């Protein structure tokens, strides 16, 4: 049985930690909500770009842009890895990094080298320690503050590298948010672009569309936007997963602290009572001796 003093100190420290985890839980929840609003705001643009692609793809030459061309041989691929800057979010970072490593290993076994493009400090820290990693680019900013223009710049680098033939394939490893409690590390191909299926509403009726200056020219301009939106969506979804994962981790930490406080409180009371009983016995003993 621990002493009363020790127990009191532990209760205090657990209470303090619980205050922090509770605050972090609330911060993560707020950030998640704000991010969801942001993700919703990008929806109309992304949806429109995609439907426009579908519409124009019917008329454009499949070889209109080098971004559509499937290379004969793949020797090098670029992998964009999207993780967080910080921990305390359960296995969010670890799971994604594990998925990225298995992708790199699989490529290596197939004779394909990987160039890494990293977003999120945890990825930079992780891959800096792994041997034989070619880190081509790393996002210098804070991942939570990432903006469309940052993603656009990164995508620009990837597109240039693809056009110049340095890489023959571009993929992105990010965390998909299947539900509020389920986060799936995913690897998705970006380049070469597989245009969305030319089907769906109203495509056949589109024969009379005026396309200015030409279907190919529009396609050429649309493709980079389409890619940027895809990468941006991947980044936002990863961020949402991170916040949701952190909220969950902090909630279970707060709950665990509650349990611990319950046990400690009981132990404390027991120790205190025992102390009092002991003292009483001493007093009674003393009185009896005096009365002797």
């Amino acid at each position, binding site marked *: 049985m621990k002493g009363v003093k020790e127990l009191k100190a532990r209760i205090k420290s657990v209470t303090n930690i619980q205050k922090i985890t509770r605050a972090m839980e609330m911060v993560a929840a707020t950030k998640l909500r704000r991010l969801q609003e942001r993700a919703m705001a990008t929806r109309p643009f992304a949806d429109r770009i995609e439907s*426009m692609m579908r519409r124009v793809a019917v008329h454009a030459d499949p070889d209109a842009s080098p971004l559509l061309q499937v290379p004969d041989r793949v020797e090098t691929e670029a992998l964009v890895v999207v993780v967080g800057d910080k921990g305390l979010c359960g296995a969010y970072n670890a799971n994604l990094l594990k998925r990225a490593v298995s992708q790199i290993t699989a490529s290596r076994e197939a004779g394909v080298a990987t160039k890494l493009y990293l977003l999120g400090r945890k990825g930079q820290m992780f891959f800096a320690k792994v041997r034989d990693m070619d880190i081509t680019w790393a996002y210098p900013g804070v991942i939570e503050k990432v*903006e469309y223009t940052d993603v656009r710049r990164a995508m620009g680098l990837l597109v240039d590298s693809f056009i110049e033939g340095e890489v023959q394939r571009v993929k992105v490893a990010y965390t998909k948010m299947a539900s509020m409690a389920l986060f799936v590390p995913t690897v998705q191909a970006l380049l070469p672009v597989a245009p969305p299926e030319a089907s769906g509403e109203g495509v056949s009726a589109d024969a009379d569309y005026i396309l*200015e200056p030409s279907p190919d020219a529009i396609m050429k301009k649309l493709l980079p936007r389409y890619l940027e939106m895809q990468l941006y969506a991947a980044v936002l979804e990863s961020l949402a997963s991170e916040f949701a994962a952190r909220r969950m981790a902090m909630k279970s930490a707060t709950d665990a602290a509650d349990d611990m406080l319950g046990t400690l409180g009981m132990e404390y009371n027991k120790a205190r009572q025992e102390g009092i009983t002991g003292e009483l016995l001493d007093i009674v003993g003393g009185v009896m001796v005096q009365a002797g």
Partner: protein
Amino acid sequence: MAKTLNVEFITPDRTVFEGEATEVILPVEGGGSIGVLAGHAPLVATLEVGIARVDKADGEQVFMIVGDGFIEVRDNEVKVLAELGERDDEIDLARAEEAERRNRERLKDRVAQEVDFDRAKASLTRAMTRIKILRDLAPGKARRKPRDPRGG
């Protein structure tokens, strides 16, 4: 009542304008503008940096700087998808003037500094377009609130 167009200006992170209009004028690639009225044929076109004008159904005129994007017209709906989109009442005149001055300077001694010529030039065009909107087209509409640092 005359037929109206349903107009939407969308950028990657927000909807800049949404409403009914009688006419929309948009800057298209290759220089020049197109005007869209109700009943326009279906069209997809690429957009250039410039000034868009919307004649709203209630008679008000709204000017916008738009750039780098696409226009889609279909069934009396005009969708403008652009990287850049700012309404006249959102433009920060002081900031635009500062950008104009800075980029002129940059372009002047570009040989010495090896500045990114295209970028500086594009930036100058945007600044001048913003200034033009506020000085000539929609005087007195400049934004008053401090700018959202996330905008650009």
